[in-house]
């Protein structure tokens, strides 16, 4: 039986149509777009077409607002570092506690350089407090960086509204939208978002290509200086094939947007309902009412995520977990901890993230496979007795922590 891939928030399969589109640019039209000869004369047009395709998907007003980069992380770093370099007198940054490390680690580094970083907290459903946000906006803030949708829980933040609020205070607004682009309709022309990051491999384009959207007129300082590529805003020879692939992937995402929000959502809902009704002591994390259509993050209490993933992998199901052990880090996922999910559940969260390539048959197979896996691990768990958690599980098993 074919293995089932439900880890699309980590990365996606490159669509075969995308691969087809890229192929001629490896060995036929391989010239440098900056060259004057015939080996590259079609490349420039192909890049222009790709830029248009990206522009359409995110609703940008001008194609020159699209800057191709190497990945989402580069776009995030470029945006934040540009904002602080362009406005050296502003020493504060506003972000959230649940951002991706691409933003959080950079902000923590900037703290050591003397910047004040305000991290907006979230409630138990992963939602922000906009009053707290409003109180922090001032002319000391160089940039606000808030993700459009959370990669782990799928929770969507009201970034358009937050960008309006920033704009009222004259503050630059950046959003890391790598999980949202292609899944949610985006209309940047009619927003106050100044900068937006997206990543190719999250929407069936190859890895190693990303985009920074830069609203016309936004003050900007490049991360990489050098050649004239990307109008001098990102030097370095273009990753031509991947950019062309990303363009095609954006066009496909436009056509599949409705499928994503109807069929994929229906599969996700069935998966979630099927698992929750069969597995006691399990619950959805994040804000189920306001969530990416493809994501379900489910916490299985009293067991640990890596162990679940290993057993799932054995039966051919791929997903990911917020457990500490899957990353080799100390704490379970900062996103789960931020939502105040108890340790014994945070360690057991599994994120299922679907795509248009999944089928309802696959969903039913997963729904059937998960309950015995959870039961097997609970049998091993010191918090579990026979067919339920031990009475007062936290007290009946209170190990000496070292």
């Amino acid at each position, binding site marked *: 039986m074919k293995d089932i891939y439900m880890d699309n928030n980590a990365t996606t399969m490159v669509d075969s149509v995308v691969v087809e589109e890229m192929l001629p640019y490896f060995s036929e039209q391989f010239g440098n777009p900056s060259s004057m000869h015939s080996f590259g004369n079609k490349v420039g047009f192909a890049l222009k077409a790709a830029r248009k395709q990206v522009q359409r998907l995110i609703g940008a007003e001008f194609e020159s607002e699209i800057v191709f980069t190497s990945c989402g992380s580069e776009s995030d770093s470029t945006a934040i570092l540009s904002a602080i370099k362009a406005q050296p007198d502003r020493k504060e940054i506003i972000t959230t506690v649940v951002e991706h490390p691409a933003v959080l680690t950079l902000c923590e580094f900037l703290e050591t350089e003397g910047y004040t970083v305000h991290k907006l907290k979230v409630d138990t459903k992963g939602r922000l407090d906009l009053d707290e946000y409003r109180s922090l906006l001032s002319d000391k803030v160089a940039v606000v960086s808030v993700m459009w949708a959370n990669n782990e829980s799928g929770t969507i933040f009201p970034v358009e509204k937050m960008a309006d609020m920033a704009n009222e205070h004259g503050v630059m607004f950046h959003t890391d939208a790598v999980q949202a682009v292609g899944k949610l309709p985006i209309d940047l022309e009619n927003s106050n978002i100044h900068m937006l990051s997206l990543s190719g491999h999250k929407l069936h384009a190859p890895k190693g290509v990303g985009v920074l959207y830069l609203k016309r007129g936004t003050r900007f300082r490049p991360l990489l200086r050098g050649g004239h590529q990307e109008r001098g805003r990102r030097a370095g020879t273009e990753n031509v094939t991947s950019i062309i692939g990303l363009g095609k992937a954006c066009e496909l995402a436009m056509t599949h947007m409705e499928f994503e929000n109807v069929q994929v959502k229906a599969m996700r809902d069935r998966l979630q309902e099927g698992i929750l009704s069969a597995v006691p002591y399990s619950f959805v994390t994040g804000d189920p009412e306001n969530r990416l259509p493809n994501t379900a993050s489910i916490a299985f209490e009293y067991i*640990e995520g890596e162990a679940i993933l290993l057993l799932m992998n054995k039966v051919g199901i791929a997903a990911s977990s917020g457990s*500490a052990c899957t990353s080799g880090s*100390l704490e379970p996922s900062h996103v789960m901890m931020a939502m105040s999910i108890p340790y014994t559940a945070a360690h057991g969260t599994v994120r299922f993230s679907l795509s248009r390539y999944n089928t309802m048959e696959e969903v039913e197979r997963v729904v059937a496979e998960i309950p015995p896996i959870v039961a097997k691990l609970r049998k*091993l768990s*010191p918090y579990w007795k026979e067919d339920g958690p031990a009475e007062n599980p936290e007290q009946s098993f209170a*190990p*000496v922590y*070292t």
Partner: protein
Amino acid sequence: MWNYSEKVQEHFFDPKNAGAVDDANATGDVGSLSCGDALRLTLKVNPESEIIEDAGFQTFGCGSAIASSSALTEIIKGKTIDEALEVSNQDIADYLDGLPPEKMHCSVMGREALQAAVADYRGEEWSDDHEEGALICKCFAIDEVMVEETVRSNNLHTVEEVTNFTKAGGGCSSCHEAIEGVLTRVLAEKGESFVAAGIGGAVPAVAATPKESMATGALKRIRLIEKVLDEVRPALQADNGDVELVEVTGKAIYVHLTGACSGCQMAAMTLGGIQQRLIEELGEFVKVLPDTEMPVEIAGA
């Protein structure tokens, strides 16, 4: 995905001795803060012979935590409790054909559960003074708490000294930024500031003298060093060169390259090769340096 050995997978997918022992007379409950994992070990000890007749585990944790628990119970069954206490976390890891460095603490948790269970059997109170932190050096599996404590108690000031004392940073060197971070923090507590030594790699070594390694076995250590030098000597002599031992201070071993070796452009590589052999033979991190780099106060003594 972790690179788990066949043995780890075997003990994870089909764990031995899972569940609590019915008529247990010893229980050890421990957890590892560093990953939130926890383990309950139950033993049935024969009061006459003190032999562990049965052992069972219940684990809340990842694949290697479950495999380490399973391995532990297999290892200790049939042993007396004194024999069982001899089992180290390395023994557990070896039994599983090794664990990834990030997962070594799973085997530590197994050993601690055993100590706690034995203490429970003997009616003693078990406590542990060992604290774990975030892994800094992946090459030698050294965590932040270890680096921090070593920096504090030995008054260290440079990354190189940290490497000499703990091995951390002695491999791929990717963690040097993190080590600098610890140094900056600890030195700031004393009102000092961390000063980086040049660009890093090319800086001559500072001879550090860890107290503990000088106390015993110094002669044995020097003989081992001489043995390794004797082994490489024929290869050097074939190229009309030679090497002699000049001085050993802590982790720094000074040698004198003679004949064709001295001034040879390959000298640095030769020293590197000797250093690798010595690290393997001595089982500790050492630095081999040309005698020309010996600090004056040592050379003069």
